């Protein structure tokens, strides 16, 4: 009987809206339960580790926290980390632009293979990233005897740390540029070419402004990994505090020496860096989507424009 009445007297608009929501969403209690579970997961796995780091860093007071940053070894590890990032990030950025240009602007044999090889450092263990350089340049590695004869140190010295870091951060810039440049197409570059622009002019004035947010996104991810890498670097560094320790290695040294407050202080500095990275990354992602969509729209409009002209001809 109720259904009969409903047919003749449509329910109020609010009730209908309520039923619409119910038919394509879960009941309120389930929604709340799901949000609650995920929130608990986030607190347990993401929030608490961060809190414990900052709490550990400030355990002996703010003065002690600041005092750590006057310690020679800690300062030196920050310097090493900075130098490593300053070398590896630009080097991989340059590679990223070159690889993205080659892969998205040209068709050639081995293109898929190149794409797959760029990804390789993402899926191998970081320890392997260090191991391979030891096998090449270590004391008993392939070039070991020659390097020893010429008194060049790569493993257990700065060059090894730079190489291992370059290996693990290798794909980041290329990976963030390739999908973006693929989606944007190259009509504007070709137009510039017909107007007489040189290759580098095209790159500097057309391509780079078009991809700047994707490029920035790749740079900050690359930088975060370069500054925070542990596995690869721990294999190739001599782990001598004040000489070849990066910040993550210094954390390990301090932690194993039971200097917990100092270890957590260095960890807090790196955590702060990763929080800034997350913030910048979110902004870049947002801007990147906008550029991507603008590119797609331009592509769509240009193809729509060409259809009537073809029909007229």
């Amino acid at each position, binding site marked *: 009987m109720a259904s009969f009445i409903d047919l003749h007297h449509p329910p109020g608009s609010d009730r209908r809206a309520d039923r619409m929501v119910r038919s394509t969403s879960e009941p309120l209690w389930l*929604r709340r339960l*799901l*949000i609650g*579970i*995920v*929130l608990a*997961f*986030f607190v347990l*796995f*993401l929030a608490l580790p*961060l809190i*414990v*780091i900052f709490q*550990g860093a400030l355990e002996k007071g703010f003065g002690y926290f600041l005092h750590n940053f006057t310690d020679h070894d800690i300062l030196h590890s920050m310097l090493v980390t900075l130098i490593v990032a300053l070398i590896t990030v630009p080097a991989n950025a*340059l*590679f990223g*632009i*070159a*690889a993205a240009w*080659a892969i998205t*602007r*040209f068709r*050639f044999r081995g293109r898929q293979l*190149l794409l797959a*090889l760029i990804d390789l*450092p993402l899926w*191998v*263990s*970081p*320890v*392997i990233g260090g*191991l*391979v*350089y*030891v*096998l090449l340049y270590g*004391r*008993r*590695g*392939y070039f070991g005897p020659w390097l020893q004869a010429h008194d060049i140190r790569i493993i257990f010295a700065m060059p090894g740390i730079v190489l291992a870091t*370059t290996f693990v951060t290798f794909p980041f810039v290329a990976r963030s540029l390739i999908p973006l440049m693929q989606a944007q197409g*190259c009509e504007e570059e*070709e137009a510039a*070419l017909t107007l007489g622009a040189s290759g580098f002019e095209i790159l500097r004035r057309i391509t780079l402004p078009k991809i700047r947010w994707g490029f920035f996104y790749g740079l900050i*991810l690359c930088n*975060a990994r370069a500054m*925070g890498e*542990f*596995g690869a670097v*721990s294999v190739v560094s001599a782990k001598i505090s004040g000489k070849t320790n990066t910040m*993550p290695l210094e*954390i390990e040294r301090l932690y194993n020496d039971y200097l917990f407050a100092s270890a957590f202080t260095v*960890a807090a500095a790196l*955590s702060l860096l*990763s*929080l800034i990275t*997350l*913030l910048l*990354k*979110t902004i870049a992602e947002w801007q990147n989507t906008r550029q991507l969509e603008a590119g797609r729209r331009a592509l769509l409009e240009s193809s729509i424009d060409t259809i009537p002209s073809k029909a007229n001809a």
Partner: protein
Amino acid sequence: MSKKRHILPGFNLSLGWSVTWLSMIVLLPLAALIGKTASGGWGHFWETVTDPQVVASYRISFGISLIAALINGVFGLMAAWIFARYQFPGRRFMEAATDLPFALPTAVAGIALTALYSPNEWIGKWLEPLGIKIAFTPIGILLAMIFIGFPFVVRSVQPVISELSVDVEEAAACLGATRWQTLKSVVFPTLVPSLLTGVIMAYGRAVGEYGSIVFISGNIPFKTEITPLMIVHKLEQYDYTGAAAIGFTMLVASLLIVCAGNFLQSWGNRFRERT
């Protein structure tokens, strides 16, 4: 030859530079890994990779990673669902925080988790009276692996949920399906490929992970040693061919995991195009 096929300049320069850099940083070192593995001979290789201590480490690295990846599958799916479908305060903040395990250095995560779960620390001290030990046991390794693998599942599944058209769910509801039936027979099957891809990516990452695990695992031989640590041990003894043999085994295992992931991804793409 290339000039005829391409309009834009810079083909030789950009491809030349890419291949040179790739060779220096990735190809030559990998060739060294394969060469060193081969130089030890088959007998030495087999002896190294089937050493009982190394085999015990496979159980940890490949076994516990699998459990971690499956747990991440469950929580990752839930997180992706609520981010894509529900409106609630703090959603954007939580979405941004999802990538924290990508951004946080592994050593930092390692000491933080150890500090949380050690017997007389934050969470550890509440669990110790109950007889539950987490730090320096396989459970600690599991937690670290869950931590580092979590974003993969969310990042893989969330775009697919956002792309789903609600029309199909409305149609199912109009045809009299309950919400649970709709989810089970309409929504969930379309998410399976991306969910599996995310789980496999999380698995691959956990298998190779080193920094966040070595602090919380305690590195007890035969009990809580991971395979990457066995490589480090061999290198500490200057046993290059032994280290290369284990490294090569891990490389092949990772390659298989990645191939499985790629296969699932292309399957998922075909699946989505059809629907």
